[in-house]
């Protein structure tokens, strides 16, 4: 169809990726058990979050899975006012980055009132079930 000089495509494309996570299954198993897991290189001690199964520093290095404590502090945050189309049904959400006790940072939603948030406040990263899938979220520690 041509309207106002524009040809409207008759072909549509649905993009829905199929992403291999076999090697990081312990992370998702951990979420089911209420744990946030990272990987740690037994050779150099580097901790990886998001978890990855190879240590580029040591090449190869031997990795092990560790449970993160979850305790951390708020480094920055933003309330997303215009969300992507695929998040239209999520309601309003606030994204935060926290520095965890183990020295790694995580990015996740923070479940708190925006007016209560201050950089430097103590937060906790916890596993949670949402829409039949396991994910993780920051909470404010009062």
């Amino acid at each position: 169809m041509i309207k106002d000089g524009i040809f409207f495509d008759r072909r549509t494309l649905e993009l829905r990726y199929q992403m291999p996570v076999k090697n990081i299954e312990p992370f998702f198993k951990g979420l089911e058990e209420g744990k946030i897991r990272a990987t740690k290189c037994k050779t150099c001690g580097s901790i990886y979050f998001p978890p990855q199964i190879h240590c580029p520093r040591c090449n190869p290095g031997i990795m092990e899975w560790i449970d993160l404590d979850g305790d951390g502090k708020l480094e920055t945050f933003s309330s997303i006012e215009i969300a992507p189309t695929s998040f239209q049904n999520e309601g309003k959400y606030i994204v935060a980055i926290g520095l965890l006790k183990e020295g790694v940072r995580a990015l996740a939603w923070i479940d708190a009132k925006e007016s209560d948030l201050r950089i430097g406040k103590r937060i906790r990263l916890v596993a949670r079930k949402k829409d039949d899938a396991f994910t993780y979220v920051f909470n404010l520690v009062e």
Partner: protein
Amino acid sequence: MGNKVAIVGIGHSVFGKRNDVSINELAWESISVALNDSGLTQKDIDFYTVGNYGLWSEEILTAVTVGEYAGLKCGSLKTEAACASGSAALKIAMDSVASGNSRIALAMGVEKMYNSPNSTIIELIGRAGNYFWEFENFGLTFPAYYALHATRYLNDFNAREEDLCEASIKSHHYGAMNKYAQFHKEITLSDCMNSKYVAKPLKIFDSSPITDGSAAVILAGEEEARKITDTPIYIESQGSATGSAYLGKRDDFAGLEASRRAAEIAYKGAGINDPTSQFDLFEVHDCFSIAEVMAYEDLGIARRGEGIKLLKEHQTYHDGKFPSNPDGGLKAKGHPIGATGISQAVEITKQLRGEADPGRQVQVRKGRALQHNVGGTGHYAYVTVYSRRN
């Protein structure tokens, strides 16, 4: 690097919502002008590159479709470095000439964002980070990535949203004088402050728009360049760096570490030991107001936390100490992703030649200009030093 490379021809399309043209027609608007500007023809071009992010427009092999339309048959390559795809295109074309593999090369960028609805664009551009760990669960948007930096910056340096708006006010001031710009209206502080939030603390008027546009430059080696034009603009050096995809791997949110590394390499390559005194012009990557402020600091023309001060004191206006983005920048000129890096190179060439519009032409004393082009949120960084060697 072997031979020094110079820009010998430039072309720039009108930026904006260009629903009057196809992507190939839009690319031709700048290629044709660049060819005529240099006095060269397609037969002279030995290699060409096309910076293009795509996805929102239908063609995937844009280097090929653009080449076919424009009568280019030599070797080619499409480059992707997000919003720095244009600088990546420049790099490949420049290296091709510097190595002696090409006598003349063309680097261009084109983006046709309005071939998809806004909702699709917001979705696609929000994925330009670490898709699996950031977007999939947490729905980041492009403004949100920079908003995370803005929150931290305002906190650390006790700055206000009003201060960030100063960058946008300046951009619109110059956009109003640039006939190639998307926006031609000046804005006030209250226009900016009253605009809607997109990702707090960033508002519509802190953000660059969705843009269609193209830009092209033609490159030749030093000796060849002097035969082609009386005003070659030399690329003295280029530095590049790659930041982490996952923002959680960064330990500084009040600046972009990749920009600092790229600048250091570029300064070393061009013998710059004091960026505050050796440039007439800065073209900085101001996709958001906060990005312009961080750029001043990452490039070393302001101390950490003092970028805002440069804006407040009008030191980065065209007649200030550090003229920055006298073309309106990404904010008001527009930000056609893959074309932006080449558009900056075109502006620098115009300025160093002394051919910019009255009211926005900077005074050229040192004959040197700096380009800062960032892809994503410091995911890619390219810093390039240009000179007219007076």
